[in-house]
């Protein structure tokens, strides 16, 4: 054993000087710590990836081929450019909304309590988890995009990455809302029905299955109150390659603002209810 290693054994309480004790750096480090840990657990149980996947894949394979004639699209590429973004929005929206279950489960098993007696940042405990859930969803989103390519989807890489960024914001927002609702009602049995009641109309009113351009006026005017409607339009525009389209920045701004607000809302509830 070298002299330095011995010294480290003798003075174990001394902390490495590279670890920030407070401030934004500590917060980023703590969030990263939680993010990595949650990712590790996802990788350990890959079945979790597959479960979230089954529904979008079957829609992609069994429903999307109908769309060319149903939408009156001239090519499969055009049909997929309309449909795939919608599918990804559903994936992120539902996947995000269901993250509250994981939080309730972890609160129950004591994993979070074990973290709370340490000096780790409280918001990092929540945000690290949300980001890991969103990362998992984005892996699924990438796979779905790749599967759609042989069916005729064409999309250029720049707009695609921007579309992913928009999806990440949607995921963070949905996950935060789910955490907040989970913390308010505290019951997994009640969380399921609430998510279903909220997410179905939200998804339909975003035009994820068929674009709301086909909708009657009254339906469209309701949809305009749904933030995911704007985000879905933005995502579609990006898949078509229209980076400059108004819907892109409209969707991005609406989602960025709402995601930030929802993260703060959930973090506040978390810090209060789970001190």
């Amino acid at each position, binding site marked *: 054993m070298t002299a330095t290693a011995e010294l*480290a*054994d003798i003075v*174990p*309480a001394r*902390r*490495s000087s*590279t*670890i920030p*004790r407070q401030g934004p750096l*500590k917060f980023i480090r*703590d969030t990263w*710590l939680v993010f990595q*840990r949650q990712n*590790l*657990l996802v990788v*350990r*149980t890959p079945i979790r990836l597959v479960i979230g996947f089954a529904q979008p894949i079957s829609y992609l394979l069994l429903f999307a081929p109908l769309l060319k004639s149903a939408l009156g699209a001239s090519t499969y590429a055009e049909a997929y450019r309309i449909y795939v973004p919608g599918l990804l929005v559903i994936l992120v929206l539902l996947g995000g909304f269901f993250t509250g279950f994981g939080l309730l489960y972890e609160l129950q*098993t*004591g*994993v979070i*309590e*074990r*973290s*709370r*007696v*340490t*000096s*780790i940042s409280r918001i990092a405990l929540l945000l690290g988890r949300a980001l890991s859930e969103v990362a998992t969803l984005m892996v699924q989103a990438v796979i779905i995009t790749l599967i759609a390519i042989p069916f005729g989807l064409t999309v250029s890489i720049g707009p695609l990455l921007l579309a992913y960024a928009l999806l990440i914001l949607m995921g963070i927002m949905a996950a935060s809302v789910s955490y907040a609702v989970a913390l308010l009602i505290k019951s997994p049995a009640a969380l399921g029905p609430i998510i279903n009641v909220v997410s179905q109309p939200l998804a339909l009113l975003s035009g994820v299955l068929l674009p709301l351009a086909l909708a009657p006026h009254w339906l469209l005017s309701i949809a305009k109150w749904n933030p995911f409607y704007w985000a879905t339009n933005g995502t579609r525009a990006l898949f078509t390659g229209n980076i400059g389209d108004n819907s892109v920045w409209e969707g991005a701004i609406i989602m960025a603002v709402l995601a930030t607000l929802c993260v703060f809302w959930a973090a506040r509830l978390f810090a209060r209810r789970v*001190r």
Partner: protein
Amino acid sequence: MIETKGLRKTFHIGKGRKAATVDAVRGVDLKVGDAEIFGFLGPNGAGKTTTLRMLTTLLEPDGGDAVIAGADLRRDPARVRQLSGYVAQGGGTVDDATAREELVLQARMYGIGKDEAERRATRALDAFQLTDFADRRCRTYSGGQRRRVDIALGVIHEPKVLFLDEPTVGLDPQSRARMWDEVRRLRSEGMTVFITTHYLDEADALCDRLAIIDNGEIVAEGTPDDLKREIAGDVVTVDVNGSTPQAAELLTGRAFIRKLEVETDKGLRLYVDDGALAIPQIMRALDGSDIEFGGIGLNRPSLDDVFLTKTGRSLRD
């Protein structure tokens, strides 16, 4: 090492008309010394867990003060977290992580750097004899192994005080004895260990001092021996084969009996000054009735008796 003064917590439950308040903890004063194993006993709902959660910073007290290892609980909870460890009743290990991963993560959550965290994990695995299965997933561990990991997690940041919530619940006798050894080892290293338990034999065998909480207040505090001595005299158990009510009626009000407890429907527990003198009097009192004697026994008071006297309930209820 731990000193509390008038620690209080009130819960508000329900809303609107049904709103009610529950005074879970109504002014707890405790003093726990250095390198001491301190037992905290109480029936369910007595305020045991609430007190523990306040001391571990998981719950904010409504009133009172506490100083833990020199850190003020109200003013500096962050420092209390650094100086104390906590192991919840259910532990908190994740099925799909390994003991080593859990230990490294826990150390890093306390702000320890990655390399140092790994060194500490290795040392802890060694100290708690977990090395053989350190890289297997926690779901494969036995109850006793998992509990040892929990405790190793609680002390990974080398705290001065360790809070253990019901550390041996659900363990077989062998694992239990093993846990006791681990707790004693931590004490010998200078750590103060604060334990809540339901098992009075555990409190008796393991704890240097203990306190009993009932209805949110401390009703007794001292060494196990002191507490037993406090209820002076002997305990006579009378087995009357189911005729307990009749026997109780015949014995109630006799001057030589300080206290009479009906224990299930099987027998009676009589607290008397001198058992040897009491037994003939008991026999005489029951003689002539048609009560069938199953047996009569003489015991020194146990912690069970202390508990029964102080709270009016048996801990097993």
